[in-house]
């Protein structure tokens, strides 16, 4: 499992407590000295510049909390400096008070539109100066807090995005592992063709299937549906499949009897405390005699199709695995003929609704299997899934979908 090494949000440092710095920008030395004295008396650190250019450079260097800017200055006037400060991402939250003798509406409007936050009459009255500076610093403290929260949010977002990326990678990796456990389509046994479609509703699904020779004469195969979707059901499905591996199935029951195997599995896989469980259809095909023996634990019956006119269900009602300790599952038998196709699936393929709420149901699936009976097996499986998509008028499914086809042909 991968770990993401990122600092928790709580470690983002709080802004350091530093003295409040006020920058005075004015070409008149008397005004600068006057303001400096008054502000220093109020406990602030004061720095000075004599024109707009100098003020801009000093602001970039010192990042003051508040600036008092004269309107009329040589080289760069007050409004131009205000506009430059507000355009600088590092300085744009600095509170700007403009010094002016002119308080008519047009003047004030121009000052505000170019970046000033407040005005101070020239010459400044000490009480008004203190009040406006205090108000400005309160506003600055709020913007600093917002900046800090934004910073925290950005850090949290980056951490979450990174964690999500790692989780997605893990899920994709698990998904590839599950896919590697699925049987190769083709001819797993001479005389038996296999094709399938497997569409987990999430990256990982609770449906699983397998087909593998249990010995030289027996092909074992099953489809199971673990209730729920996602990591938990997928892990449970994969661990249950280990009991049905070629080397494990004999140890389980000392026989290839599907009913006995399911009875044993039911004892090994109890219902979870939150009610999750597994349904399974298990078959064992004896190749020399083409005798299919099968059993089902609460799983939808398989369909046996031979041409468009013959279809029958192979299954029986039964408790899902783990519903009761002492369940004995029965085995049924069916002799297969040339051209027989056996379709295994879970309920996700037929418990689908059209946009107006009509359920496709088993009858829809059965019709689709019959309609595709004359196609090549792989094409038939693909067509049935396409018909399910057509029914619900969308390409993705809410539940896991698995549809497997076995075909017995004359080469055995």
């Amino acid at each position, binding site marked *: 499992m991968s770990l993401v090494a990122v600092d928790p949000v709580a470690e983002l440092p709080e802004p350091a407590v530093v003295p409040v710095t006020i920058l005075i920008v004015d070409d008149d030395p008397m005004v600068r000295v006057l303001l400096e004295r008054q502000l220093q008396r109020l406990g602030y650190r004061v720095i000075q510049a004599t024109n707009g250019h100098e003020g801009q450079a000093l602001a970039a260097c010192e990042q003051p909390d508040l600036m008092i800017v004269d309107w009329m200055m040589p080289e760069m006037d007050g409004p131009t400096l205000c506009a430059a400060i507000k355009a600088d991402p590092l300085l744009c939250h600095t509170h700007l008070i403009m010094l002016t003798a002119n308080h008519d509406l047009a003047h004030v409007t121009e000052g505000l539109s170019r970046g000033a936050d407040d005005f101070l009459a020239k010459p400044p009255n000490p009480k008004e100066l203190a009040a406006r500076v205090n108000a400005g610093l309160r506003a600055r403290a709020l913007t600093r807090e917002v900046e800090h929260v934004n910073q925290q949010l950005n850090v949290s977002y980056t951490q979450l995005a990174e964690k999500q990326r790692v989780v997605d990678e893990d899920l994709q990796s698990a998904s590839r592992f599950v896919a590697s456990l699925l049987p190769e389509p083709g001819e797993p046994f001479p005389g038996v063709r296999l094709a399938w479609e497997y569409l987990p509703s999430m990256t990982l699904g609770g449906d699983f299937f397998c087909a593998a020779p249990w010995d030289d004469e027996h092909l074992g195969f099953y489809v199971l*549906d673990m*209730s*729920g979707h996602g990591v938990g059901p997928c892990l449970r499905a994969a661990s249950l499949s280990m009991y049905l591996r070629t080397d494990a199935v004999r140890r389980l029951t000392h026989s290839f009897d599907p009913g006995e195997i399911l009875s044993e599995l039911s004892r090994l896989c109890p*219902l*979870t*405390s*939150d*009610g*999750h*469980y597994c*349904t399974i259809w298990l078959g064992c095909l004896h190749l020399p005699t083409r005798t299919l023996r099968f059993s089902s634990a*609460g799983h*939808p019956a398989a369909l046996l199709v031979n041409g468009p006119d013959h279809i029958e269900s192979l299954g029986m*009602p*039964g*408790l*899902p695995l783990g*519903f*009761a300790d002492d369940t004995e599952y029965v085995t049924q038998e069916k002799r297969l003929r040339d051209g027989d196709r056996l379709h295994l699936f879970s*309920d996700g393929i037929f418990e689908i609704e059209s946009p107006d709420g009509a*359920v496709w149901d088993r009858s829809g699936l059965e019709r689709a299997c019959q309609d595709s009976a004359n196609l090549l097996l792989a094409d038939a499986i693909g067509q049935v899934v396409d018909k399910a998509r057509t029914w619900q008028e969308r390409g993705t499914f809410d539940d896991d979908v698995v549809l497997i086809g076995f075909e017995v042909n004359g080469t055995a």
Partner: protein
Amino acid sequence: MRVVERKAQSGTVLDLHERFDFGARGTFKEAVEKVRQEACSHLIVNMQGVTFMDSSALGLLVVTYQNFKRVNSKVSLLNPQGYVRQVLDLANIPNMMTVYDSESDALSAVPVAAVA
């Protein structure tokens, strides 16, 4: 899903309405837990108003049955309809829990504890 609890002399009836699916798990568990804490000897789950039931709901019903059985109490089902009945039949639930067609039959049934 909406759940209505009704007390009767010989047990408690939970009337379930609409969809009994993954999203209804919390509501159902809460209702059952309340009944369980009241030491109910016979819980009757009235399925008549249930329009849909998925596999997680089925698992929850069986866990409830197993938990009640462990303390010698009984869980029965009442009047499942259509699709819900099919789901229960496919999973062979009627072999595990008694399914009644009438509430009076369900209420007059003798709970396990009384038999014991």
